[in-house]
């Protein structure tokens, strides 16, 4: 079992100190490509959390069977299999959600953060901790991507939650700026993603710096 201190450490690592997007700067390709709005960012993160929890648990359970020399191909095999199984089950069971998440799920395989956590954590720790580590790393990604997607959407088209009607019919996006807002397409384009991400990293570093020098 795990102690409370251990749990807290894993959570703090994932959500803040080792935040995948702001500190490790890993997995930028899917991150920048899909965070054109808040919903996309949240959805990609939720799917990633699921895959990271599963891959952490599976790799950790099998870690004694995997020879050290070939661990990377085996990890890649496990992650790719899990992603595909998740993809297929979403397609079959939750088709509405799949249409929104569809393009994101295969992208998770290309997210090196999954492989990185499996290699750095799950291959050396028990299953429960590994699954939790995956979830916490994913939660760190979740709030960052939600913020990134939300900011880009707000600046780019003046709304929030656009696309929510595809998830829950009946809900409508929120028009934050007046309807006449001309939009600012740069924020929606890839360069906008880099600029906003850069601002977020600067913001986090500023908080850290202020904390360090009272």
């Amino acid at each position, binding site marked *: 079992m795990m102690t409370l201190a251990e749990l807290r450490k894993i959570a703090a690592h994932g959500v803040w100190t080792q935040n995948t997007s702001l500190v490790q700067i890993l997995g930028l390709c899917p991150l920048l490509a899909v965070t054109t709005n808040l919903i996309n960012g949240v959805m990609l993160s939720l799917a990633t959390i699921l895959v990271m929890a599963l891959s952490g648990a599976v790799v950790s359970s099998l870690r004694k069977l995997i020879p050290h020399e070939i661990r990377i191909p085996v990890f890649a095999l496990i992650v790719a299999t899990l992603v595909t199984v998740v993809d297929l089950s979403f397609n079959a069971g939750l*088709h509405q959600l799949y249409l929104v998440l569809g393009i994101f799920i295969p992208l998770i395989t290309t997210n090196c953060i999954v492989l990185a956590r499996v290699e750095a954590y799950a291959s050396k720790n028990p299953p429960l901790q590994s699954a939790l580590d995956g979830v916490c790393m994913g939660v760190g990604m979740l709030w960052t991507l939600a913020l990134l997607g939300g900011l880009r959407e707000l600046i780019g088209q003046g709304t929030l939650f656009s696309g929510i009607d595809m998830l829950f019919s009946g809900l409508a996006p929120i028009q934050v700026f007046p309807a006449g807002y001309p939009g600012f397409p740069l924020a929606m384009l890839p360069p906008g993603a880099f600029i906003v991400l850069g601002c977020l990293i600067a913001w986090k570093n500023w908080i850290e710096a202020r904390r360090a020098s009272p």
Partner: protein
Amino acid sequence: MTPADPPVTAVGVAARAACTLFLFTVVFVAILSGAHQWTLPAVEAAAAREKMKRIDEVLPRERYDNEPLDDAVTLEAAPELGFDEPARILRARRDGRIVALVVEAVAPDGYAGPIRLLIAFEPDGRVIGARAVAHRETPGLGDYIDPRKDRDQARPWITQFDGLNPAAIDAREWRVKKDGGRFDALAGATVTPRAVIRAIRQAALFVAARRERILAP
């Protein structure tokens, strides 16, 4: 080391690693194949439902009473429609009579890759409606071809094809107004509508040229 232990050589280690990797691959491919078999019926049913939902956007359901997905004519490969595979034209019937044709077409020259379109025609060739069902046009610029993204919600861009009679329109008119044609386009994003207009025209010509075969019972 006891004599019973196998000698540790580079070849031995490599052979063991290869065997282990092979076993892992077999096991995980088996898992994948199982998951695929298990989900296949549900995935296919969901895909058919999804197709019907797209058809609903171009062709109201009260106009026909058959299953257009099960009533398709397969024609030769049609580069005009942007496909390498044989063209499939769906037929919607009411009381056995064909009331509409649904054609899938691809505009290969969108600003950001191909644009997939679904177009419904009357049996006489007039357009009932058209929709862009998959595209990657720039958000906020070219994506107004999708009525859900169009700022003009009262009269989205793509609805100007509704009720159009392609036979009555001259080739030169199949252009955006900026190029001397008859179709509107937003300033600054004309590559996308040009591609869509061309693709709809090609589809109309394709259907008109093969009307007899498509309408044959």
